[in-house]
């Protein structure tokens, strides 16, 4: 089996992509993406509704939105509620993991 050395695109907060790119790779429609921007679930990195740009990490949220839309038949309002709650759960889980890391682990049973 041949190993391929491949270029990858990090979905992070430092690189930028266009509105069209988010639509293409997420599978959301332009109308759905606009609706999620209106609810604040997806935040563009600029303030120009005619020519929005996004941090690459928005693709992760947009793809999650498309999965939830397809798998649960959710409309954009339902998606916004679900995504906000999932973000809060994620933040709380990260906080618990951070606090657990600071606890002394027992070395002896």
């Amino acid at each position, binding site marked *: *089996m*041949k*190993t*391929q*050395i*491949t*270029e*990858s*695109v*990090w*979905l*992070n907060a*430092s690189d930028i992509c266009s509105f069209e790119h988010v639509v293409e*790779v997420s599978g959301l429609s332009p109308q759905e993406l606009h609706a999620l921007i209106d609810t604040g679930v997806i935040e563009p990195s600029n303030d120009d509704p005619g020519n929005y740009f996004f941090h690459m*990490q928005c*693709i*992760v949220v947009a*793809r*999650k939105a498309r*999965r*939830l839309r397809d*798998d*649960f038949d959710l409309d954009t309002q339902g998606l916004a509620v*679900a995504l906000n709650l*999932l973000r809060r759960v994620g933040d709380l889980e990260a906080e618990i*993991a*951070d*606090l*657990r*890391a*600071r606890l*002394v*682990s027992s*070395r002896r049973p």
Partner: protein
Amino acid sequence: MKYIDYYQVLGLGRDATQDDIKKAYRKLAHQYHPDVSSESDAEHKFKQVAEAYATLKDPEKKAAYDSLGSHPQGQDFVPPNQWQQHFHEQSTDFSDVDLSDLLAAFAAAQRAQHQERARRPYNGQDFEATLPVTLEQVYAGAEAELTISLPEYDAQGMPRRSPKTYRIRVPKGASDGQRLRLPQKGGAGFNGGRAGDLYVTMQLQPHKLYRVSGRDLYLDLPLAPWEAALGAKVQVPTLGGTVEMNIPEGTVAGRKLRLTGRGLPDSSGRQGDLYAIVQIDVPVKLSERERELLRQWATESRFNPRSFPGAAT
């Protein structure tokens, strides 16, 4: 090819109606959807449920699936002759064919026939994978290999799975859960369609010494009672190599001692800190001389570690 009993996956009989199928899917989706479930193997279970639903909700796919007959779950089977004729398949080896890929290709071909045999391009499917990474790889930056089985079409249009290995650069400062996209490295396209993308999620593996909190690392540092009481210089392992740490006199258990800049780097290169949490350990077995010295210490010391203000006497 392994047979998957999609009816059984959804907990249904073969006479299930479209309404039954939808209801069963919704119930299981709420239980196993990887975005909402906390079950450990939710992703794998949901994949089966979603595959079953995608097949049984589509009348053409369902009819094609039903025509394969009923076999025990997971049993190796070969599709009937009419299927092989459909793909003009000469080979009798179906071991690398995935049932869901086959049904998707069959449905696409059926649609193409309805459109006057138009050879419409079909884009490949996106795939997701998890890449386990170690703290050492994140600390220094590294290359990691990811092997995934992806569908490719043979000359007859039969989708066959083959393993692909990608070498991925793990940048210094990558964090747990960070994602990357490998454009057009997912499932192959058909009739000139573009390949799907591969999405990879970094999963930081637990370390036997360090616990991670953001960019900071936490390490338990066991000290002997005399090291804690008198102070000492001890060797502490860090990801960048062993360093000497000064233990101040009178160090108590639970005290956090910081090694600045010995944690994980972030994407801009700033280093977190390493915290050594003091644990005071005692020998399980004492020699006679140790026992004698400790008794002497106990007799001469006025130290009382227990103070319970307000406790009943």
